[in-house]
């Protein structure tokens, strides 16, 4: 299936609106689902490339993604439309939730349900990671880098300002030697 970009800025805005509207527990799994699987604006490899670029730039990853993709398709107006679409509903909801929070924060049932949703959302991240990893799963060097980043940033909690440059330098060497 050949991906087709959005035909209008309105379509772009609505696409990112639908990402933000449903993004419980994190935006990335929903961004992948909407852009690659539902609307098919991007090929899977293209999504991975753009996400990788945005992860290395400062600032929120998926917000950067909305800006870079919006620009690619419709220039500056597209970048603004993508960003506003992504942010509009979550901005309203998070402030509404903050206003209501005092009422339900102490209820143990509510806390249990919210924890369950949070952990399931974390599972969506891991599942999205598996989808992104499929094209490179056959390369030993890629497996080593994936595992190294996971252990350093996830289990040992080494700051990203250290993990990113070290991992990028090692990966570039591997890439130059055609191991990736």
């Amino acid at each position, binding site marked *: 299936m050949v991906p087709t970009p959005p035909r209008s800025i309105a379509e772009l805005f609505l696409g990112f609106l639908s990402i933000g509207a449903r993004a419980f527990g994190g935006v990335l799994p929903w961004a992948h689902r909407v852009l690659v699987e539902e609307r098919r604006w991007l090929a899977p490899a293209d999504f991975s490339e753009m996400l990788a670029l945005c992860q290395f730039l400062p600032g929120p990853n998926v917000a950067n993604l909305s800006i870079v993709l919006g620009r690619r398709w419709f220039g500056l107006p597209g970048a603004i439309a993508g960003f506003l679409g992504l942010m509009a509903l979550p901005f309203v909801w998070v402030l509404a*939730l903050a206003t209501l929070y005092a009422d339900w924060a102490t209820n143990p049932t509510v806390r249990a349900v919210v924890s369950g949703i949070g952990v399931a959302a974390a599972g969506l991240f891991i599942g999205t990671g598996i989808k992104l990893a499929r094209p490179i799963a056959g390369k030993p060097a890629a497996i080593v880098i994936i595992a190294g980043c996971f252990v350093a940033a996830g289990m040992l909690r080494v700051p990203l300002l250290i993990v990113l440059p070290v991992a990028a330098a090692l990966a570039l060497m591997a890439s130059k030697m055609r191991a990736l």
Partner: protein
Amino acid sequence: MLLVLFLYFVLLSLLAVGGVNTILPEMQRIVVETEAWMTGAEFTQLYAISQAAPGPNVLITSLVGFKVAGLPGAFVTLAGFCLPAGALAYWVGGVWERFRDAPWRKLIQRALLPVTVGLVFAGGYLLATPEGVDWKNALIATASATVLCTTRFNPLWILSGGAIAGYLLYA
């Protein structure tokens, strides 16, 4: 006050390589210790709200602004945090498109992909284990990842399952 808020978040924006979580400790230091706008417990509560609400976790910045200066504060912190990084992303995105077929870009792309995947796994692991690893977290997260990868169910069903599992296991 609004200007001070704005400038702090502009500064944080350019330090936030890899996302908002990178600068959370620094943000906490500024709002709790340097400026004493709220207590540490209040900051943690805002973080919990930003995690529970649907949307990007960058909205923790709006919550801090909202708490400090009301609705204008919420806009100012979000704009301060997103504008500098957004402008950089806009510029780099243009360069990236222009060199679409350059060999060096392909080299970098092949290198960045496994790093990105490793960091996505790390993010999922951190979100799944807010108070350490136990069998309940492991069960829910594994089930959720498996269903996402092997079926075409809408993830909202998976999250609903997580809500039920949370009720049964944690309550």
